[in-house]
């Protein structure tokens, strides 16, 4: 059978596919880490991760449709038995229109507009979640075996009794009056949601009965859970999980004129989890930047506390390498990759060799990449000063024919030595290639990528990326990037006229991989513009920054600053310039920059943070992606200069100094080959 459909054509597959297909393609690697098991056990959890980290896939495991699909299929439930019994309901704050509360004005007596709108917001969420919980009951109603496994008793008379008692509960403040059957209950709730949607859609005002029956955050949900248990519809011990996803979207509702965020809607959500109510457990899906410092709860003076009121599960942390623990990410990628290919009809035996390395092969050695860039014009990789002794030049050119990478490093080594004005050195010393010797391992390792950049630039060749390791490294612990890279690689492959069934008998040509990676990188760069909250600003900024960093690396012939594919700012500078801090934070939040804390060499700078381009952007800007050596030590002036050049701020802004000091790399404390501290 000839297969010609791209297995990676759909990037966000877990959001769109049927439950049956989800079961086949879901990767259980993430849930191999026991930390993730907290999602399937009682207790509130805030699940954080950037776009494409796998957050939605994990939360989808809680869906009743997926639970039933696992139950019916021959695929084993991916979690241990103590994480295999629950029911769930939830709300997606973006898709449900809950975020539209920020757009409407409400006038109600003398009450403060913000307070009133937060109350309606909570009431809407209550009704939406209760509606979804009843939908869950309805799903299991027709699934006898799954229902029996969970111990559910979904019988009409029980449901009617439950509905009648529920409607009388004070928590509704009369909102469910006259309901005496399960079907009437569902109709009443649906009607209230419809009224809210009309209101949010600017089609009508809220009816009076809603105005006088706003429910408290979370209370009706807990009452529903309690009564479902009291009426033996669900067993006493069965956990009920309530998902609230897209928490970060609430920030858009809270933006004040001065650019700060009021926290109003997020504090309302905190009220749901802060009541220490054990009848239900909440799962809040959020991007890391949507946290706010004090976790205060709406309408109270108190805050929710991590460990006491909720636990936090950070997917980015799970996928990172930690001292003694290997990163889960390569394994995660390989599993997803094999499942996608399997779904497309390509069966690979992954017992001895991972799926990605079978298809993409090994990453080329730096030495081979250098030879690839050089082709035949060996002399062209150098910019040798005319006053150098001829024998040194001849030696390097001769070496370049056999090992251009070593020759380029040798050029830098000699330049560093001359610049340091150290005692003259002899040709015999050069002929021994000290830069290649064992005691210079780190010096060499830190400069290999910069040397490759300079060789490719001198030869006017594009840097190349291919091989399984490159594909995974460029994905930057983000599964969406991994899928995007694959989508472009496989498109290029299919464009050559080949069909997928040939994969397995032959690996993907390197040139195809490289083309796909370059395309994916360009796509990711374009995609920056599409993100809200200043996408075009970030797009222009990264263009300026990426070009700046490349120029720095390319023109640094001595390779004194090989870590200049990133930059550092001191925490002190960041604290004093909130605009710059906020902008860089948004760059991180939208997957444009990556940041880590670090301790700079110069103690006077104090604790600092360093930023790198998001890995997948490296091919577009032709910058090496490994983060080695010290970054470029910038100050706020530098960043403001980039911001002004990118037209994020005006040069006439007060925040931007009219006369900017000349910034060079010379004044940075960097150790090099001759540094005695080595």
């Amino acid at each position: 059978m000839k297969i010609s459909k791209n297995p990676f054509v759909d990037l966000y597959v877990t959001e769109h596919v049927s439950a049956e297909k989800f079961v086949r393609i879901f990767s259980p690697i993430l849930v191999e880490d026991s930390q993730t098991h907290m999602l399937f056990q009682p207790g509130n959890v805030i699940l954080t991760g950037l776009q494409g980290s796998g957050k939605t896939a994990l939360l989808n495991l809680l869906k009743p449709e997926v639970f039933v699909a696992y139950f019916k299929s021959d695929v084993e439930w991916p979690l241990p038995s103590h994480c295999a019994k629950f029911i769930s309901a939830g709300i997606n704050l973006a898709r449900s229109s809950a975020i539209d509360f920020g757009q409407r004005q409400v006038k109600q007596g003398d009450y403060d507009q913000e307070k009133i709108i937060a109350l309606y917001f909570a009431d809407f969420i209550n009704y939406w979640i209760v509606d979804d919980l009843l939908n869950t009951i309805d799903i299991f109603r027709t699934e006898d075996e799954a229902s029996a496994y969970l111990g559910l008793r979904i019988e009409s008379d029980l449901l009617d009794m439950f509905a009648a008692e529920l409607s009388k509960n004070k928590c509704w403040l009369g909102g469910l009056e006259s309901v005496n059957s399960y079907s009437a209950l569902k109709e009443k709730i649906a009607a209230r949601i419809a009224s809210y949607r009309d209101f949010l859609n600017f089609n009508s005002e809220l009816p009076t009965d809603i105005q006088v029956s706003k429910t408290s955050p979370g209370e009706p949900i807990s009452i529903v859970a309690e009564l479902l248990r009291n009426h033996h519809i669900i067993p006493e011990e069965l956990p009920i999980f309530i998902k609230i996803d897209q928490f970060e979207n609430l920030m858009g509702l809270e933006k004040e004129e001065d650019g700060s965020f009021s926290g109003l809607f997020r504090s309302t959500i905190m009220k749901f989890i802060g009541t220490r109510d054990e009848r239900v457990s909440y799962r809040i899906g959020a991007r890391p930047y949507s946290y706010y410092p004090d976790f205060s709860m709406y309408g109270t003076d108190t805050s929710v506390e991590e460990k006491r009121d909720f636990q936090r599960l950070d997917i980015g942390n799970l996928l990172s390498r930690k001292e003694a623990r290997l990163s889960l990410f390569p394994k995660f990628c390989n599993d997803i990759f094999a499942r996608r290919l399997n779904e497309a009809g390509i069966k690979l035996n992954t017992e001895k060799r991972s799926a990605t390395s079978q298809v993409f092969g090994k990453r080329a050695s730096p030495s081979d990449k250098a030879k690839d860039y050089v082709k035949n014009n060996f002399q062209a990789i150098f910019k040798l000063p005319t006053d150098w002794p001829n024998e040194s030049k001849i030696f390097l050119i001769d070496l370049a024919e056999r090992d251009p990478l070593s020759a380029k490093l040798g050029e830098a080594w000699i330049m560093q030595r001359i610049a340091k004005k150290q005692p003259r050195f002899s040709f015999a010393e050069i002929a021994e290639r000290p830069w290649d010797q064992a005691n210079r391992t780190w010096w060499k390792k830190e400069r290999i990528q910069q040397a490759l950049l300079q060789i490719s630039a001198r030869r006017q060749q594009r840097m190349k990326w291919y091989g399984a390791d490159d594909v995974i490294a460029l994905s930057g612990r983000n599964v969406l990037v991994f899928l995007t890279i694959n989508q472009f690689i496989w498109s290029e492959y299919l464009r050559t006229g080949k069909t997928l069934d040939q994969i397995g008998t032959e690996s993907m040509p390197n040139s195809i991989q490289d083309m796909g990676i370059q395309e994916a990188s360009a796509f990711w760069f374009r995609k920056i513009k599409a993100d809200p909250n200043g996408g075009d600003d970030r797009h222009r900024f990264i263009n300026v920054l990426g070009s700046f960093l490349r120029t720095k690396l390319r023109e640094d012939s001595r390779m004194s600053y090989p870590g200049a594919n990133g930059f550092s700012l001191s925490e002190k500078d960041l604290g004093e310039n909130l605009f710059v801090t906020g902008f860089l934070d948004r760059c991180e939040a939208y997957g444009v920059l990556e940041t880590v804390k670090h301790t700079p060499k110069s103690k006077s700078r104090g604790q600092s943070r360093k930023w790198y381009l998001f890995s997948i952007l490296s091919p577009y800007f032709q910058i090496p992606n490994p983060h080695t050596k010290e970054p470029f030590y910038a100050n706020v002036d530098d960043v403001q200069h980039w911001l002004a050049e990118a037209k994020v701020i005006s040069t006439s802004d007060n925040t931007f100094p009219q006369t900017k000091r000349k910034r060079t790399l010379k004044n940075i404390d960097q150790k090099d080959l001759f540094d005695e501290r080595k």
Partner: protein
Amino acid sequence: MIRDDATFRPWGSLSAVFSNAPRDNWSCIGAISTEERSTALFEKFCEDYQFERTMFFKLVPSHSWHVNQATELTNRNCDKIIDLGLEEEDILPHNLDAPFGDYSVGIDRFLEELEFDNLIVDITAMPKRLFFYIIKKILLPETRISNIVVTYTEPRDYGVGALAENPRAWAALPSFLGPRRVPAENKIVIGIGYEPLGLPELVSTGEFEGSQISLLFPFPSQPDRVAKNWKFARDLFPNIDTDVVSISRVDGTNVPEIFDAIGRVGDYGDIQLMLAPFGPKPVSLAMALYASKYSNGDLSTSVFYTQPTVYNPNYSLGVKEIDGVPVINSYCIRMNGVNNY
């Protein structure tokens, strides 16, 4: 010639349309921006007629590197329209990025208090989220307006570089949320324009997966504008799968024709449509008219957009003129109390 089964939907130049329109009792809703053309309708109309009541939104630019220039141009146009006779208290300043509720309060109050028979809605400088909402409101049966004309002034040219930037997230325009549960059979209609505003990335990340997509391509047009439109289309679908995507060429100013083109895709309300108004204003007007008409029930039309928050101060340049007369396209959408669409 008007077909027997077609509704008479007059449109044309301002002078042609008003040659047969009532002379008195006209009110106007408009918007003042950085664009010179934003005052053209008021200026031209007031040469021969008089507005009884007016409301113009002053679109206060959001923070950007060119906010000073944008503010200066907007203020200049405000001063100009006041000099032409608009009362200062009829200008409502609102930040471009303000919550929509700030605008809707003004619109609702204006329409509630309207005592005059006839209304012009000048959409020339209006952001889409504004005029879509206004169109829906004024076409409601209970609105006591006999005649409604929508006007759109063409520019002499468009600016260079990006015309609009920093889009908001993909979201429904106010009042066009569509049904809570989208039916299995649904289609998407995209108006092709100049600025994709993140739309290609939405397409490539599967947002429209499983839906039939129709592109409304403005043609004929000036060659440079056609080239921009093709670039937009290619950005959306580098390799068009004709089983999924179809292209309809429409006259970018002929609102009745565009309305019918959309109607054929959506079977005039029998198929649920999601409209994406990225094309020229008249194409978006046709979308607003269609979505307003088919806006109830499980098949109600939704309109989604990535509303920009920053506009190029030189979005357009000057006013297009023919024989010294500004080109102000005018569309009768209600005549003698009967909606034409």
